[in-house]
Structures are given as structure tokens and as C-alpha cells.
């Protein structure tokens, strides 16, 4: 074992803390890790190239972009706003709460693709959230708008993460089951999936409570910005 292998971790932490270009930091950390582990440069580059080719599937999301881009050009976001404003009693908090519930329950049923940042968050959830927020608290200052958008993205992540693990055929459940089996513990995948439920419920309550308060928080923040502006 080789403690020098941790050099790469140090490069990553330092690089992100200094806000250097993340792409450069990560590639530099890979090179540093390989060198620290005593590999020669050619071997490091070959490992890098091989892993890159094998992981190209991570860019397949690019294929959603022409569809979303074309529809946005033709008024998708405007239509999302129009549609949501027809629901006169919908607050931003309720909208996000409904989205979180849908996302989490769908993921629990294995339907992890019924959502995502390019597919639903950017073209649908964000314009709807901004429209309901503007209806509720008036025009959104830049800072409030940024936070609301970030919360939309976070709500998609939380709903996905703490739903998918309850689905028994999900990759993570099978990964855990095969790992435990390799180490001499025979357990049912269903047992692992069901023990994801308490955390799933906790996630819904914890994040749901934050999301439900978002209208009050936005109003308070706008009030604070106004008083600051009035004083200045």
C-alpha cells in the first residue's frame, strides 16, 4: 500500500478550493496520482485514454439538447409559464413539493428517466418556478432568481437520489448485494432496497420542509434587499 497515492486527492481539494479550472485540476490530479503510484507516463496516458473511451456514455445527454433547444426557440419556456399561471392557487413551494414527490415516487418505481436537468429542470421546472414566484412576490432580483434556480436543480437531485435506491433492480442495490455476497454475507436485494425507505421518508420530510418555506424565504430576502437599497 502506498500513502503517496493520496497526492491526487490533495490536488483535487486544493484545485477546487482555489477555484482553478476544474477540467485542468482533474486531469492534473490524475497525472499526479499515477506518478505518485510509480507508473510511467505512457502507462498513465494509456489508462486515461482507455477510461475516457469506456466512459463516453456520460455525454449521451447531448442528444437531448437539439430537442430542448428547438422547442425553447419555439416558446417552450413561455408555454411552461403560461400553463403554470393557469393554476391560480399554485405557490412556488407547492410546485417544488409536487415535483419532488413525483420525481421521488417515479424513481422508486425505477422510472429514473422521468426527469433530469436538461430534460425537465431547465425547460419546464425553472420557468414554472420563476413564473409562480413572480406572481407571488413580484419581480425577482438576480440573487433571488439564482437561488431559486439552484433550488430547482437541487430538488431534482434529492428526489432522484433518495428514490432510486428503494427500487430493487437499481444498479446500486445490485452492487451492494454482490459486494456483500463476495464477502460471505448472503442478503436479499429486497432487504437492501427496503432499508432505503426510512432515509427516503426522511429525505422527503427534510427537503420538503425547506422547499415548502421557499415563498416566505424569497419574500424575506426581497424585503431585505429593498431596505438595503433604501438605506444606500
Amino acid at each position, binding site marked *: 500500500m502506498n500513502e503517496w497515492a*493520496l497526492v491526487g*486527492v490533495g490536488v*483535487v481539494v486544493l484545485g477546487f478550493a482555489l477555484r482553478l*479550472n476544474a*477540467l*485542468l485540476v482533474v486531469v492534473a490530479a490524475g*497525472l499526479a*496520482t*499515477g506518478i505518485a503510484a510509480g507508473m510511467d507516463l*505512457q502507462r498513465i*496516458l*494509456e*489508462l*486515461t*485514454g*482507455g*477510461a*475516457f473511451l469506456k466512459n*463516453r*456514455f*456520460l*455525454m*449521451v*445527454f*447531448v*442528444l437531448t*439538447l*437539439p*430537442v*430542448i433547444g*428547438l*422547442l425553447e*426557440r*419555439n*416558446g417552450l419556456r*413561455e*408555454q411552461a409559464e403560461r400553463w403554470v399561471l393557469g393554476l391560480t392557487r399554485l405557490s412556488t413551494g407547492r410546485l417544488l413539493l409536487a415535483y419532488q414527490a413525483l420525481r421521488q415516487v417515479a424513481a422508486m418505481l425505477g422510472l429514473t*428517466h422521468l426527469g433530469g*436537468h*436538461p*430534460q425537465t429542470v431547465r425547460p419546464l421546472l425553472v420557468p414554472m418556478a420563476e413564473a409562480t414566484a413572480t406572481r407571488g412576490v413580484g419581480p425577482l432580483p438576480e440573487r433571488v432568481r*439564482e437561488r431559486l434556480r*439552484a433550488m*430547482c*436543480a*437541487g430538488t431534482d*437531485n434529492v428526489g432522484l437520489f*433518495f428514490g432510486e435506491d428503494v427500487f430493487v433492480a437499481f444498479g*446500486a*442495490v445490485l452492487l*451492494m448485494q454482490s459486494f456483500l455476497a463476495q464477502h460471505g*454475507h448472503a*442478503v436479499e436485494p429486497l432487504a*437492501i432496497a*427496503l432499508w*432505503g425507505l426510512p*432515509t427516503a421518508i426522511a429525505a422527503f420530510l*427534510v*427537503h420538503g420542509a*425547506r422547499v415548502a418555506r421557499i415563498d416566505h424565504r424569497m419574500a424575506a430576502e426581497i424585503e431585505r434587499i429593498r431596505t438595503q437599497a433604501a438605506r444606500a
Partner: protein
Amino acid sequence: MSALSPIYLLVGGVLALLALRTARDAGNPRRAAGALFWGVLAALFVAGDFMSPLLVGVLVVVLALLAGFGGVVRGTRVERDPIERADSAQRLGNRLFLPVLLIPAATVAGVYGAKFLQVDGKPLLSGQEATLLALSLGCLLALVAALRATRERPLVAIGAGAGLLDAIGWAALLPLVLAVLGGLFAAAGVGDAVAKLVSVVVPTDSRFACVLAYCLGMAAFTMIMGNAFAAFPVMTGGVGLPLLVGLHGAEPASMAAIGMLCGYCGTLMTPMAANFNIVPAALLELRDSHAVIKAQVPTALMLLAANVAIMHAVVFRHAG
């Protein structure tokens, strides 16, 4: 060549168009470097199957250098007039939603349908291949539907997609490069070094301390690796199984399930999980690339505490 090669060809096509657009964009101050970045990336997707791993490795370093020294900046935007967009929304109405909903619907249908594609009782496609092919097919179907609804030309759609990719910028490549780093970490034995560190500092005779070490270890190591799946075997093999199961008689299924979810709390808090945290910030055009992480940290910390409590309450239920 693999079952996914045709998909990579399509991705490469979008990348190539962005490279062309960048090369011709007189308003972009770094257009040569930017066109080179997207062009090299397009080549890796179109022709990667025919390149040696060494050449690919060198090109990845070239991409990192181009992005690292400011070569990839957003080009001039050619957005459609907001009034035209509003008119179009009025005219097309809810028909605009149909293609968006077609992507997930076709993906889900394709994933289930692929299970019936069998040769001699074995599935023709792996689960991952089936998912990606179904997603791609869903995108193509949705594209056809969107083109018919809007009566635009296909090249306009690819151009609009390239424009969105330009807005995301080099961050689009980050998840892929992080997966490469994960492979190098594994080859160099980073996991074993971390597990050894954790087991050295934990007072092992305390049940609670062991639960805490496993849960926090999963979260912290996931933050380093950007992926709970990479952290799970390391922390469970190094801390969970020997200390919690071996020493204190914890039940493995519940320990593993809750341990993995501690890792997910880590995923919510790290820029290393770029596809969940950094790419969306770029996609939503946020000025602070860490804004999504900041929005998630309170949820993640409260859930991590809940996980420690849940694990401590349930894993020892069969132990004395």
C-alpha cells in the same frame, strides 16, 4: 466498436457542428482555441474506436490544457426575439410539451422492451447499453415530433442543441474526466489508503463511534471520488464489515443500504459529482458554479445526521 458506436457518432455530429460554429464566430475572442477544443472532442466521439488509448490520453490532456488556459469561452449568442417566442408559444400551445414528454416515455418503454431482445435466453444488450440506446432512440423520436410541430429544418434543431452545449461549455466534459480520475485512483490504491486512515483514528470499542466513522467516511470519500458507488466497496470493506459487522454484530443489509445513502449525502455536497452539481449550474446559466451545491448542503447535512441516527437504531437489532 460496440452497440453504442452509432450513438457516439450522433453525439460527435453535434460536437462537430459546435466546432464549426465556433470557428466561424467572429465575435468569439478565442475562437481558434474553442474550435480546436470542440473539434478534438468531436473526433474522440466519431473516431475514438479507431484510436490507440495512448493517443486518446494525449488528446484528453490537450483538451484540459485548452480549457484550463481560458481557450473555451461562450460564443456570440443568436437567440430568437422574445416576442417571436411568445407568439409561437401562443400558436403551438401545449403541443410544445409533447416531444419533451416523449423522451422519458420512449426511454422507459425502450428499457423494458429491450428485456425481450434475447439470443439463446441471454439478453442481447446489457442494462446500461439498453438504457442508453433507449434514451437515444427517445431523443430521435422526440426530435422528429418537435420538427413536425414547429415546421423547422433539422439543421436548426442541431444548431439550437449546439447553442445549449456552448452555454454549458467545458463543464459538459467534466463528468467524463472525473470518471477517468476514478479509474486512476482505483489503479493507484487511493481507497485502501483512505480506509486505513479512517480505521486508525476510530475508537473501535464504541458502537456509536464506528457508526459515525462509517457514515461520515462514506460521505467524505464520496465527496472526494464524486461517486458513492466508488466509495462503497472501499469504506464497507475497510470500515463497515470489519468494525460494524465483525466486531459489533451489525446486520449487513441495513448497514449497506443506509451507508450507501450517506454516500448520496456526500454527492449533494461535492463539485466532483459534476453531472449533478456543476453541469446543471452551467445549464441554468448561474453565475456561481457552486450555487446548486450551496442550495443542497442544508438538506445533505440534516439527512446525514438522520442516517447516523437511523443506522445506530436499526443495525444492531440482532446483536446482543
